[in-house]
């Protein structure tokens, strides 16, 4: 198993220019598991949602750090997106389809719904004033079987 375990961590300034960088970097890392084109598109989209949320909602009035960690274990990808921004008061409400606290920014409120559709599992831990941690786990159908 350990031969198929791999790890990376990414940290960057919460600037919107970095949204595309973050999803390309995660995709380049996950590429070693030979995902299908569709799986890779799902991962890029889910990462884009979580990273954009950290940038817009986590740090609404200034620059902070966003961290993305990615662990590959066998055929499973785990992605954690973290910020130390303002946090979420009510996580259950935030996860509802179409809910957004920023209609003024024309947000669609579909970010969490998309993360959920495109991964097998999404956990959100958030504390107001301390920050937010979104963990997504996805098992790839395409990965070669592990012989060990």
């Amino acid at each position, binding site marked *: 198993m350990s031969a198929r375990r791999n790890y990376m961590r990414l940290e960057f300034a919460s600037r*919107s220019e970095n949204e*595309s960088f973050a999803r390309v970097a995660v995709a380049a890392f996950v590429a070693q598991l030979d995902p299908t084109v*569709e799986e890779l598109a799902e991962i890029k*989209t889910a990462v*884009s949602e979580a990273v954009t949320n950290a940038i817009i909602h986590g740090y609404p009035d200034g620059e902070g750090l966003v961290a993305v960690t990615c662990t590959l274990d066998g055929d499973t990808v785990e992605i954690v997106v973290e910020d130390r921004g303002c946090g979420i008061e009510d996580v259950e409400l935030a996860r509802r389809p179409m809910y957004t606290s920023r209609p003024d920014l*024309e*947000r669609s409120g*579909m970010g969490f719904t*998309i993360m959920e559709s495109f991964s097998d599992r999404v956990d959100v831990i958030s504390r107001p004033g301390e920050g937010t941690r979104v963990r997504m786990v996805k098992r790839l159908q395409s990965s070669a079987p592990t012989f060990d």
Partner: protein
Amino acid sequence: MNLAVEAVQVSGVVVARLRGELDHHTSEAVRECVDAALEEAGSPFLLWNLAELSFMDSSGLGVLLGRYRRISQQKGKMAVCGPTAPVRRLLELSGVLSIVPVYDDETTAIAALREA
């Protein structure tokens, strides 16, 4: 920027052609370009040509739905044509396809928008 946008008028319909990746960072440019074109045209008919859009996330949905709201108030119509597989999936999943019709290409879409 990894997105290019142009908005042209074809037979009274504003056609917005997007190429590249539509996310939160690139959404502002799209909003500005399309709103200016709608203003100038004075017509509430809008077609999104997404044939060359390789990536879109929920920020893109926000842009589409924002224009949709505005156009509906003016009793206009909005459509989408040519979405690539990942973009089509996002439109489906988010329910956009149940309120906005999708066509294969610009010509068919423009004809359909004008018919109403």
